[in-house]
């Protein structure tokens, strides 16, 4: 693909924020979008939710990301044109392509793939060198070790090596926990940085049985924070792991550990860092998800900036949140290595004078891959990737996952589950990771694994009553649309195949889902039993891994069934800017 540097330069509007000042758009004449004006005395580089994507990717941002209640119409619940308008991004620009789904296919041909760790390495080293020694630190917000076939067979070990070469000094986790405690600890023994989690504690039973913990007195399993000297000042970085690991994933992976948001423990820790350790700034490296972070920022005092992840929201500007102690900035830095957050701080004794933030799209065509990282990636991939390079299908349409209710990737998975496992209905989890594949470009097993590679991939077929199916949909829907973000888990709606329904996101749990109908148009009956196929169950299952089911279906030459639309009729959210017009 030709590098159209002029397209990038003309279109680029890298957003920068100075507290209290309007957005600063870069001029078209800028030599490079990666030349960032020097500011302050400390720089924090933030990666999050890369999902182990070693090479540059296509990833379409959502067309449906609805906010309800206080979250309606505010970032991150803006998509497409509403997003562009809110952040002042030109519709046909490279940034419009990076941050939104607007004209995705057309722009994909123009601007190419984003991310890739060799490209990230080049960019990160450059941004570090720009500020000089002892002024920069690189942190990762988690979901670094999962998302590809390679990461799955290596149980995240590939990403530990990559993290070490990249120079990640602190990280927290989410999917990292789904390899289980033993693998997690083994990987961390090889990790040169620190794994931080203020909100993971031993269960009472595990504490009683003297299970290993960072701090036996508090029961904290991991170190909660580090203090990093930057530009002659002391910056505390606190880790906040995904609060709902044992609920969103099988409990058997983390039987000894209890999670949660742990607001009170966090407040005590912040107070101790400020009072006893006399730090000049406090940063929360969070895997809460953006809505949770926005609420937390309004309640916990003493945090300067929350560097957020989990919900995969690429938000170009920080959101300012007032609380009893002052103001906290909340960011979210997208996913799949598409973006690098750059936080520049002007630190003073005991305080932060001013802050600038850039969320840089990592345009792989503008960055020369770092040779050492490219070598390491080649070496890591060499062992497995030839097994997965066979072309097994060519999609006849754009394949993507990310949207609140449905996407072609999951339509395909549901079709495969129903066909191969002979079920009336299929359910597939609403993950937010998984790549985008362009129409007409061959799919390999490696691509299939990038949509499905988890440590509990077993499929199942079970009988469920209509009432049970409705309960599952209601339960998951409340994880998205509960008006209190602390009750949200941050994934998207469970995908349904062979089943259509209406959804009223603004209603309360139990009253959101209605008009459930089978593929043949018949209404679902509450008491009748239906054969339901699925995968990623929190209960142990015995069926074939979902990637084999999907691979078999694709190899048989079938693609998508007739387009049925999403199968979901939305009610009561007309005009919500979280829905692309």
């Amino acid at each position, binding site marked *: 693909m030709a590098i159209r540097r002029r397209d990038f330069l003309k279109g680029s509007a890298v957003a920068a924020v100075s507290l209290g000042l309007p957005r600063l758009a870069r001029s078209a004449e800028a030599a490079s979008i990666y030349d960032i004006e020097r500011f302050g005395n400390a720089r924090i580089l933030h990666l999050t939710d890369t999902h182990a994507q070693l090479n540059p990717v296509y990833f379409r941002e959502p067309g449906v990301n609805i906010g309800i209640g206080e979250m309606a119409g505010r970032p991150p619940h803006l998509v497409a044109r509403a997003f562009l308008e809110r952040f002042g991004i030109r519709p046909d620009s490279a940034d419009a392509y990076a941050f939104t789904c607007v004209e995705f296919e057309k722009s994909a041909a123009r601007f190419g793939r984003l991310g890739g760790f060799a490209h990230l390495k080049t960019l990160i080293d450059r941004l570090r060198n720009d500020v000089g020694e002892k002024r920069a630190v690189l942190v990762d917000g988690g979901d670094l070790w999962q998302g590809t076939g390679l990461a799955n067979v290596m149980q995240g070990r590939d990403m530990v090596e990559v993290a070490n070469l990249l120079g990640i000094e602190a990280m927290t986790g989410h999917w990292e926990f789904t390899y289980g405690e033993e693998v997690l600890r083994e990987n961390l023994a090889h990790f040169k940085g620190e794994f931080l989690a203020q909100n993971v504690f031993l269960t009472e039973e595990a504490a009683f049985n003297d299970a290993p913990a960072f701090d036996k007195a508090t029961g904290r399993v991991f170190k909660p924070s580090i203090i990093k000297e930057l530009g002659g000042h002391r910056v505390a970085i606190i880790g906040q792991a995904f609060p709902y690991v044992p609920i969103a*994933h099988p409990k058997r992976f983390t039987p000894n550990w209890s999670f949660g948001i742990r607001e009170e423990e966090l407040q005590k820790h912040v107070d101790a860092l400020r009072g006893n350790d006399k730090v000049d700034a406090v940063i929360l490296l969070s895997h809460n998800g953006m809505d949770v972070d926005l609420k937390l920022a309004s309640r916990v005092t003493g945090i300067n900036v929350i560097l957020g992840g989990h919900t995969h929201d690429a938000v170009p500007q920080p959101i300012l949140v007032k609380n009893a102690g002052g103001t906290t900035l909340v960011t979210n830095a997208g996913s799949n290595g598409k973006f690098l957050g750059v936080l520049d701080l002007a630190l003073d004794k005991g305080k932060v004078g001013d802050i600038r933030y850039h969320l840089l799209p990592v345009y792989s065509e503008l960055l020369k891959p770092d040779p050492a990282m490219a070598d390491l990636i080649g070496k890591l991939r060499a062992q497995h990737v030839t097994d997965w390079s066979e072309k097994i299908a060519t999609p006849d349409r754009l394949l993507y996952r990310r949207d609140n209710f449905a996407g072609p990737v999951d339509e395909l998975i549901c079709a495969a589950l129903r066909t191969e496992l002979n079920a009336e209905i299929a359910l597939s989890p609403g993950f937010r990771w998984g790549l985008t594949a362009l129409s007409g470009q061959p799919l390999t097993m490696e691509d299939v694994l990038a949509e499905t590679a988890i440590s509990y991939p077993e499929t199942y077929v079970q009988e469920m009553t209509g009432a049970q199916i409705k309960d599952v949909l209601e339960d998951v829907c409340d994880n998205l649309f509960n008006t209190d973000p602390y009750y949200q888990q941050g994934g998207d709606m469970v995908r349904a195949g062979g089943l259509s329904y209406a959804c009223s996101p603004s209603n309360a749990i139990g009253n959101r889902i209605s008009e459930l109908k089978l593929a043949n148009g018949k209404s679902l009956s509450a008491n009748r039993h239906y054969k339901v196929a699925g995968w990623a169950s929190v209960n142990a299952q015995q069926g074939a891994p979902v990637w084999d089911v999907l691979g078999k279906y694709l190899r048989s030459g079938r693609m998508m069934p007739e387009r049925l639309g999403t199968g979901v009729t939305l009610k009561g959210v007309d005009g919500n800017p979280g829905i692309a017009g």
Partner: protein
Amino acid sequence: MTTHIGPHPTRRLILQGAVTVALIGLGNLPYAPARAAANDKYPEEAFKQKSEADAIKALYGKTAEPSDKVKLDAPEIAENGAVVPISVTTTLDKVTSISFFVAENPNALAASYKIPDGTMPVVANRLKMAKTTNVVAIVEADGKLFSAAKEVKVTVGGCGG
């Protein structure tokens, strides 16, 4: 102070993790000796009530007002509905009892503690919850009732992104 485990140890709630405990003071309560004598008994009627309102009425004979001086700590989403850890602390003076109610459990009253004079009003417990509902803590202080409530979500789990 003595501890009485309720007279129905086979109740499913007790067996499966919701420790139903009544801590009963040994009298000598300065403000109402007659009442204290009556309260020495296991509050059988209150534990039998289905609804939260009926259970509160049976236990205390009056209603509670919400108070920010009652601090109820419970998870937003339960990691295990069978064992939900909760605790209550309060800055109220003259606390004489603390009780927990789970609005939509088969029997709403889960536990009631008598707090003898001079005891710190701090109580922790574990509740069994079948489904998402409000947990209510009531603190009896100086003859009045004060409450705090929190919704605890009990979910089928899974499907996290």
